[in-house]
């Protein structure tokens, strides 16, 4: 009985969270610096890609998942086994993504295998937060690079920022744009990893992904700094 009540409570929290996310996201005024056409063109016939953004931009995932679901572009996300993760997983599914559970600290191999199968066997794409689930912030994990090498799906780096936002007191100081704020998105060039890449090339690819994500982060932040001048 208590277990059923817990489940019901979880469903209710997720439903409320979904309504809040949908409402919040619908008030944002979106501005693409680049990559809008690339994202808009993704559909069920597109080849799989691995879309990467830093963990503190996780709130924007809701917006991206919803858009890709509308375009019938199948995506998978990996969410940790934590209690917060339970709710995030339910929310992710409700927004239209397939959810694989795992994180570098718990169930990492299982999670990576799930993502690998998603791409290699089901032709799905991946939305990944390369410094998740516990950081260090802005440090990409090698799992992303290995997945890209093994599936030959390129990494598509992305960043977002807003003119008005709250900062959550989390390890990554997560950003939550305030209602009716202007949100800027920037998408970088794809990064491909050679099937035969050796350890040093994998490390170079990892650094390249980190660099590209940080550059995109600077681009979107500078957009508002220039507007203020």
């Amino acid at each position, binding site marked *: 009985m208590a277990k059923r009540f817990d489940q019901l409570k979880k469903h209710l929290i997720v439903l409320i969270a979904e309504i809040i996310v949908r409402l919040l996201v619908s008030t944002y005024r979106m501005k693409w610096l680049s990559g809008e056409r690339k994202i808009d063109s993704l559909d069920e016939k597109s080849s799989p890609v691995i879309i990467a953004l830093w963990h503190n931009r996780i709130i924007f995932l809701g917006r991206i998942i919803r858009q890709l679901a509308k375009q019938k572009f199948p995506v998978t996300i990996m969410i940790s086994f934590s209690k917060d993760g339970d709710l995030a997983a339910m929310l992710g599914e409700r927004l239209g993504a397939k959810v694989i559970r795992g994180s*570098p600290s718990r169930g990492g191999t299982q*999670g990576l295998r799930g993502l690998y199968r998603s791409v290699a066997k089901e032709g799905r794409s991946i939305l990944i937060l390369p410094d998740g689930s516990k950081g260090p912030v802005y440090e990409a*994990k090698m799992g992303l690079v290995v997945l890209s090498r093994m599936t030959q799906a390129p990494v598509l780096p992305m960043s977002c920022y807003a003119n008005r936002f709250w900062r959550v007191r989390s390890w990554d100081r997560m950003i939550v744009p305030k209602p009716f704020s202007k949100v800027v998105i920037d998408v970088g060039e794809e990064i491909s990893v050679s099937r035969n890449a050796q350890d040093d090339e994998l490390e170079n690819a990892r650094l390249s992904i980190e660099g590209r994500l940080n550059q995109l982060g600077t681009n979107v932040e500078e957009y508002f700094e220039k507007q203020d001048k």
Partner: protein
Amino acid sequence: MSDIKNSIIGLISELANIPKDEIKPESELVADLGIDSPKALQLLVEIEDALGIEISDENAEDMNTVGDVIRFCEAG
């Protein structure tokens, strides 16, 4: 040495950058050989492809040593 044992040790040696003769059945995959999640993913996929078998997540979780991997693959 059986073909399966030989090829598994070869794969692990390549992934862990450790000479074959230093890899023993009792070697722990994580603690002794540094097989982290990304390397484990590569190892499992390469074994599945090479031997034409499927390794479930539950079976993979039970593989702690090189010997565990060899025993599972020889039985499969």
